[in-house]
Each structure stands twice: as structure tokens, then as C-alpha cells.
């Protein structure tokens, strides 16, 4: 499957995926804030309509400040929409639903806990049986390449390692929807590519629906089945790109011509939006 697929196959794959059940749905969702300095209300996001199919890997790219994190907050139930509906597995989102895991951009590893305890944190609080916690944490340690660091503290780890700990902490709760907000933003390019592979492996293994927010076009193009491009504030989806990658893809797709085409299309849309922010004279 790792060879490049002919386009007709890709189209058939897409078509075959369509009837999959909708996992997450946003309908006419908006979010307004009051400006901290002027006190004026402004619209940060929407109105947005979006449906994520169960098990898809969807990425969002958009200029900074366009409302990507706000959108993730609404999906995760960490924030409430000003209008519109957010549904997860058919039910309105009100607070973080069971089955949703979030990985934040910031380092969220707890510095007072060792790696093992960090990963086990959510499970222990949820009252999962000790043997089961041990089993899942051991698996996550191996999966994320952290086995030798189980007893280390976050301060002793590199940024990439710490982010793995955060991903593992979410992974062990076995979420059916994983939301990631620029999780690799602070990492160098090589580490980002490798972390991308880890993420793909995780996605394949768990069958979870993944929503990845990123500012890196190559990351979106290489990892996703579908990429949504957002406009400047108020954030709206201005384009959706189906990448058509096979499920067993990895970072080596960057050397295919298709990767270049996808990245070029994303950039074409995003360039216009970014220029608007920068004063957009040209």
C-alpha cells in the first residue's frame, strides 16, 4: 500500500469513506469575545459548519489569531459557543465529554510527577483498577518510546519527550476523539516529522478520530486525510483539501509529487489570508 496509488483508486477510497457515520458536528457555530483593551465585542469565529467522520484524520491550518484554538475549545467542551450547536456522537457537548482527549500546545506535563505517574494521572483519578492502569501505562510507555524514562521527571526531558508524555497521558484514557492544538509547535523540524509518524501510528492503532491544529502546512499535508483551511478573523473554512493518502502512510510521503501539490494548494489559500493580516498591499 505504500506505493503511490493511481488517482482513480483514491477517488474510490474517498467515495467508500463517505457513508461513515458522522462523529463530530458543528452547525452554524460562532464565538464572540469582548476585546480586552477596548471592551468592544467582536466575532472571533464562524459561523462554522463542519462534520468529522468517525476515524478520520482532519487537520486545520490557518493564520494565527483566526480562532483555531477557540474552535478546539468548543469541540472539547472547554468553551461554549455564542451560537450554534456542537455535537459529539450525536449528543450536545456540555463540558468535556467522556471519550474526548485533548493535547495542548503548552507543556502540560506535571513537573511534580515522574513520567509514569504523569501518564497514569487521568486513569487513577477516574478510578481505573491498578492492574489495568499498569497495563495501559506500560503499553503507552513502549508505544511512545518512553520506557527508559518512566522514572524521570519532566524537567529532565527534552521538549519532544515532554510532549510525548502529554500525548501518552491522553492516549491511555482511550479517547475516541483526539484533539491536538499545535502539539509540535515548540519542536524542531526533524523531531516534528518523527512525532508526526508517531501520531499516525497512534491514529491507525486506536482508530480514533483525530483533529490536529497546526501552523505547519507540511505537517497538515503529510498527516491528514483531509485539511481545512481557515480565513483570518472571524475564522471561516475557505477550503477543504482531500489528500487521499493511504491509511498506512508515513513521513516519507513528503517525497511524492502529490505532497507538493497539496502543500502548494494550501499555501495558495493561506498566502492570501496571511497577506491580509500583514496589511495585504500586494
Amino acid at each position, binding site marked *: 500500500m505504500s506505493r503511490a496509488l493511481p488517482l482513480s483508486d483514491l477517488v474510490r477510497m474517498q467515495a467508500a469513506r463517505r457513508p461513515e457515520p458522522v462523529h463530530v458536528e458543528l452547525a452554524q457555530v460562532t464565538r464572540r469575545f469582548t476585546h480586552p483593551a477596548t471592551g468592544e465585542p467582536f466575532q472571533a469565529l464562524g459561523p462554522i459548519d463542519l462534520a468529522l467522520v468517525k476515524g478520520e484524520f482532519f487537520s486545520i491550518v490557518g493564520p494565527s489569531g483566526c480562532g483555531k484554538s477557540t474552535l478546539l475549545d468548543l469541540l*472539547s467542551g*472547554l468553551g461554549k459557543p455564542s451560537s450554534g450547536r456542537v455535537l459529539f456522537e450525536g449528543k450536545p457537548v456540555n*463540558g*468535556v465529554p*467522556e471519550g*474526548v*482527549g*485533548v493535547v*495542548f500546545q*503548552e*507543556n*502540560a506535563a*506535571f513537573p*511534580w*510527577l*515522574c513520567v509514569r505517574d504523569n501518564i497514569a*494521572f*487521568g486513569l487513577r*483519578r*477516574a478510578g481505573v483498577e491498578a492492574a489495568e492502569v499498569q497495563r495501559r501505562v506500560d503499553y503507552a510507555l513502549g508505544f511512545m518510546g518512553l520506557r527508559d524514562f518512566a522514572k524521570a*521527571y519532566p524537567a529532565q526531558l527534552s521538549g519532544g519527550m515532554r510532549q510525548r508524555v502529554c500525548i501518552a497521558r*491522553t492516549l491511555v*484514557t482511550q479517547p475516541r476523539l483526539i484533539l491536538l492544538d499545535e502539539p509540535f509547535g515548540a519542536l524542531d523540524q526533524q523531531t516534528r516529522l518523527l512525532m508526526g509518524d508517531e501520531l499516525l501510528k497512534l491514529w491507525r492503532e486506536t482508530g480514533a478520530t483525530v483533529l490536529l491544529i497546526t501552523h505547519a502546512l507540511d505537517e497538515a499535508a503529510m498527516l491528514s486525510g483531509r485539511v481545512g483551511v481557515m480565513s483570518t478573523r472571524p475564522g471561516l473554512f475557505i477550503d477543504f483539501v482531500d489528500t487521499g493518502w493511504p491509511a498506512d502512510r508515513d513521513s516519507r510521503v513528503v517525497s511524492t509529487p502529490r505532497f507538493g501539490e497539496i502543500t502548494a494548494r494550501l499555501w495558495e489559500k493561506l498566502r492570501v489570508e496571511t497577506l491580509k493580516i500583514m496589511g495585504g498591499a500586494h
Partner: protein
Amino acid sequence: MRLLPNVILLLVLLALWESLHLAVGPSAMASPWATAARLASLLAQADTWRHIGATASAFAWSLLLACVGGVALGMLLGLNAMAGNVAEPILMNLYALPKVTLYPLVLLCFGLGLGSKVAFGVMHGLIPILLFTMNALRHLPPVYMRSARSLRLAPWQTAWHILLPAIAGEVLAGIRLGFALTLLGVLIGEMFASQKGLGYLAMTAMGAGDIATLLAIALLLTCFAVTGNALLLRVGRHLEHP
């Protein structure tokens, strides 16, 4: 080792003390050796231990109340941004107030004895612990609270498993400050309105012009305060590098 600087510091202090003693004479300043001898003879008397016991129990109660009250109120104010903003200047002013001026009021409320001493100790120690706790919470990385919510923690789980460990280091720094101030508050309380305790003992010695006893009590209290501080520092370091 960190032992050597401490030994040198101790020797320098002793030398300064001795030279001060030589300069002003024994009626104003007892020598270190005379003080140590006086302390030894004081500690041999059962009566002294009754006073130490009185101070110790007043101090223990004060510190306990100051810690529990300071951490609990600090958490409430730290988590509620508005309440914190309102409370901070008030607390700062309260803290800057010379608390001795409030002592008559405390006496009226609690009467002579343990109650007043404890109240006075708490008045000195609680506010710094409260302020340290409150500020630690205000500067908490927001992602901790977001993580707590995304892991669907109950409020008490968030407080116990995230907030407390996250602020433990700073709370402990507040407690170190509160430790010294609580002790001070208790001693001042004993000096003004008590028939028991080291503060009372020091006050009577002062009245009698018994410099050696006064200094012996000061020496005892200093040793206690330094030991307490060192222990808390140690716990703090353990928290930082578990």
C-alpha cells in the same frame, strides 16, 4: 560541603558577640559563655520547661491555624480573580499595620491566656501564607486547569491532585516566613498579657535587669527558629527535586 560556611558564620557571630560584650560591659551584654552557662542552668529547672511547654503549645496551635487558614483562604482568593483583586490591597495594608496596636482588642475578644496568644500568633503568620498561596495560584500556568477539565476531574480532585502540588513550593516559602512571624506574634503576646511562656520569662528577666537570662532565652529561641527554617528549606528542596 555546606557545613564549612555555616561554621565560619557561627564563629564570626560569636566573635562579634564577644567583642560587643567587651565593649559595653557585662551589665549590658552578657558574654556568649555566660549566656550558654545560664541557658544550661535554666534548662535544668522544671519551671523553665513549663514555660517552654506553654510557648510551644501556643506556637503549635498558631502555626497550625495560620497554615490551614492561610492556604484555604489563599486558594479561595487565588481561584476567584475578582475576590483576589479586591482582597490583595486590603491584605497588604492589614499586613503592614503594626499589629501590637490591635492587641487590646484581641485581649478583649479572647481574654488573658492561650486564646489571645494564639490569636496574636495567627494574626502575624496567616497573611504571608495567604498571600504566597494566592499569588502562586494566580501565576499557575492556565494549561494545568485546562488539563484538569479535559481529564474530567472533580473539583476536589483538581484542588488536591493539581493545585496543591503545583503550588506546594511557594506555599512552603510562605510557611517559612509565617513560621518566624507566628513565633514572633506568640512571644509578643506572652510579653504583654501572660503569666506563662518564654515571652513572659524574658519580660520578667528584663524587668529584673537579668541580662544573662534574657540572652539565654533569645539564644534558645534563635536555635529553634533556625532549626525550623532549615527543616522547611529541606522539605522545599525535596519538593523541587523529588
